[in-house]
C-alpha cells in the first residue's frame, strides 16, 4: 500500500472520484494549472480537462452559489475555498441555500456537493489564514461537517462526502497536510461519515479531539501513560451529524473527559460534547469535564504557538481530570 501525506491522499481521493463519476467537477481559486495553493488539486486539469477542473474568478459567493445550482442540476461539484477564513463571503449561500434547499423544497431539490477547505493554525498565517470556524457550520442544520486527521481518513471520508446526498463541508487541517503520513489503499474505498475513530484505548481519561489536534493529543496521551494515566483518545472525524452513541460510550468508559480543539472555547464544538455528557450520563462522571481550546480571541500570528493548545496544556488537563 502506498504511503501518502494527508494532502496527497486528498488529491488521490479527488482523482479516484473523478475517474469513476463524470459528473464530479473540481473548481475554485487557483485549483487549475497551479494545482491549488497547497497542491491538493495538482494534476487534475491535466488529467480531466478544463471543463472538469478549473479556476474561478475571485468570488467565494460565486463559487458556492454556482456549485449549488450545478448540484441541483445533476452535477457533483467539489469546490475549494482557498482558506477557510475566506468562506465567509459565501456564508449566506452555505447557510441559507445549500443547507436548506432540501428542506424548503420538501425534498424536491437538493444540493449534493462538497466544499473542501483548509482550516486551522500553525503556519504563521495570522488571523485570516488560521481560523477554525467549524462551530459556525456545525450549528447549521442541513449541512454535514467532516474533519479528517489521517491520510487514510482524508481519502475515505472525502469519497464518502462526495457520494453523500447532502452538502458536506470538508475541513482539512492544513497543519497536517505534509506532516501526517500513512498507508492509503489505491482505488476506491470510503470511511462512513458519522463514525468516530478510537485512536488509543485507555481506562482512566477520555480525550475527544479532531483534525489538527489529534497528533497533539496523542503525544500528550503518551506522556500521560508514562505517569500511569491511560487515555482513551477519540477522533470525532464527523462533527455533524455526530456519532453520539460513540461519544457517550467513550465518555462513560472512564468517567473523566477532556475535550480539545483549537477553535475558541465559547460556544465552541466542545460545549456540545460537554452538554451531551451532562445531559445523558452525568451520573457516570467522576470529574468535571475540562476543555482545552484556543482563546476567545481572534487568531494571533507571532504568538500562535501560545494560542494553539499544545501537548503541555493538554497534559495539564489530563492530569487534573485524572487526579480529581
Amino acid at each position, binding site marked *: 500500500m502506498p504511503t501518502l501525506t494527508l494532502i496527497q491522499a486528498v488529491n488521490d481521493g479527488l482523482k479516484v472520484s473523478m475517474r469513476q463519476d463524470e459528473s464530479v467537477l473540481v473548481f475554485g481559486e487557483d485549483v487549475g494549472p497551479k494545482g491549488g*495553493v497547497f497542491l491538493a488539486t495538482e494534476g487534475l486539469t491535466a488529467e480531466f480537462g478544463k471543463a472538469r477542473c478549473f479556476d474561478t474568478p475571485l468570488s467565494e459567493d460565486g463559487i458556492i452559489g454556482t456549485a449549488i445550482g450545478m448540484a441541483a442540476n445533476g452535477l457533483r461539484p467539489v469546490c475549494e475555498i482557498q482558506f477557510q477564513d475566506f468562506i465567509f463571503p459565501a456564508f449566506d449561500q452555505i447557510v441559507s441555500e445549500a443547507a436548506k434547499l432540501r428542506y424548503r423544497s420538501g425534498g424536491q431539490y437538493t444540493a449534493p456537493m462538497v466544499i473542501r477547505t483548509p482550516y486551522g493554525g500553525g503556519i504563521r498565517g495570522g488571523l485570516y489564514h488560521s481560523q477554525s470556524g467549524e462551530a459556525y457550520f456545525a450549528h447549521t442544520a442541513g449541512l454535514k461537517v467532516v474533519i479528517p486527521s489521517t491520510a487514510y481518513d482524508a481519502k475515505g471520508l472525502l469519497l464518502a462526502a462526495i457520494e453523500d446526498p447532502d452538502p458536506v463541508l470538508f475541513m482539512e487541517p492544513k497543519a497536517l497536510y505534509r506532516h501526517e503520513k500513512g498507508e492509503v489503499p489505491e482505488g476506491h474505498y470510503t470511511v462512513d461519515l458519522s463514525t468516530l475513530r478510537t485512536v488509543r484505548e485507555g481506562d482512566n481519561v477520555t480525550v475527544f479531539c479532531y483534525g489538527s489536534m489529534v497528533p497533539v493529543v496523542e503525544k500528550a496521551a503518551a506522556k500521560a501513560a508514562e505517569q500511569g494515566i491511560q487515555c482513551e483518545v477519540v477522533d470525532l472525524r464527523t462533527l455533524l451529524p455526530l456519532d453520539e452513541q460513540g461519544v457517550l460510550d467513550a465518555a462513560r468508559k472512564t468517567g473523566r473527559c477532556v475535550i480539545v480543539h483549537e477553535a475558541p472555547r465559547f460556544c465552541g464544538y466542545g460545549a456540545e460534547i460537554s452538554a451531551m455528557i451532562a445531559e445523558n450520563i452525568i451520573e457516570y462522571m467522576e470529574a468535571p469535564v475540562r476543555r482545552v481550546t484556543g482563546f476567545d480571541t481572534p487568531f*494571533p500570528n*507571532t504568538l500562535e504557538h501560545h494560542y494553539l493548545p499544545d501537548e503541555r496544556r493538554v497534559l495539564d488537563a489530563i492530569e487534573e481530570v485524572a487526579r480529581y
Partner: protein
Amino acid sequence: MVPQVIQLIDESGSAVSQLPDLGKDRLRAMFISMLRVRIVDGRMLTLQRAGRIGFVGTSTGMEGAQIGSAAALKAQDWLWSGLREGGAAVMRGLPLAEYVAQMYCNANDTAKGRQMCNHFQHKGSNYPSWSSVIGTQIPHAVGAAYASKMRGEDVVHSVYFGDGATSSNGFHSGMNQAAVWKVPAVFVCVNNGWAISVSAKAQTAAETYAHKASAYGMPAARVDGNDAVACYATMQAAVERARKGDGPSLVVLETYRIMGHSSSDDPSKYRDEDEVAGWIAKDPIQRLEQYLTSQGFLAEGEREKIEAELLAEIDTVIHEQEAAAPMALKTLVEDVYATVPGHLKRQYNDFIEVAERHGDAQPGDGAFPL
C-alpha cells in the same frame, strides 16, 4: 468602446504629451521612493528565504503605479490599501522601522504581531489596517468617505485593490454605494495581470477593467501603470474631481506583477516566461530614470549612488529590528475589546500558570488581578 490607455512618457523614457508640472524635486522624490520600494522588496525576499520573516508580497514592476498614483494624494487624504501598497505608505510617512517591524511581526509592530507579514498600517498618514480578505476594504473606504463628506472635510479617500478583487462582493457594493451617495472616493484598480494564478483575462469577460465603472454610473480612466508620471496625472485629476464634490471615479493602472504572487508562489507553473520578459522590458523605474536623465534631473551614475544609500538605510533598520524584545504575552487577550473582559482574564491566567511553570513567561507577562 475601449478607453484609451493614458501615457505621458513612453517606454524609451521620452515625453509624448504635456507633463504635469511636478518640478525636479518632486520627480526625483518619486524616483527615490520607487527605488526604495524595489530595494526594500529585495531585502525582504532575502530575509524570507533566510527564514527571518514569513511572507512577502512584492511590488516589483508596480512601483510606478503605486508611487505615481499615491503621490497625487494630499497628507489629509486616506489610502485604503490592498496587499502591496506598503511602499506608498512609507512615502506618505510610515517610518521604515515600523514597516520592517511589521514584516518581522515583532514587539515593535504597531499591530502587535497579530497580522501576517506584509499587512501594514499607519494611523499618522491615514493608512488603515488591511484585512487579508480580498475586497473588504472597498466599502470601508466608501463609508469613511461618506463620513468625511458629512463633516464637510477636505479629505479624499482612495482605495487600492487588484484585478482579482473586482470579483469580490466588496467591489460591487462599494462601487455601487459610492456612486449613489456621490462620495469623495477614488477607486484604484491595480491591474497587475494576475490574481495569484488566475490571469486578469480569465477574471472578467469585460473588455477592460475600466468598463466596470459605467455600470455603476461613474467615470473611469485607464493608465499605463509603468509610467509613474501618467499615474500621477490621472490620479490627480480623479482626486481633485472627488475633492470638488463631483463624486467617485475608477482609475485602472495597467501594470504587471513581475514576481510570484508572494514568496510562497511558483509562477512558472501557470505563466509564460516570455510574457514576464516583455514586461521587464517596460520597467517603470528605468523609464523614469531615462526621462530624469534626459532632463538633467539625474546625473550619470546617480542611480547607483542612491541605491547604495537606500541599501544602507534598510540594512540599518533590519539590524535594529533583529534585536526586538519578545512579544508581551498579554497581547494574546488585549484589544479584543476596549477593556479585557473577565473571561479573557481568566483564560489568560490559566494559560500563564502553565507558561510560567515551563519558563516561557517574561517579567510583565504575569496574571491579571481578578
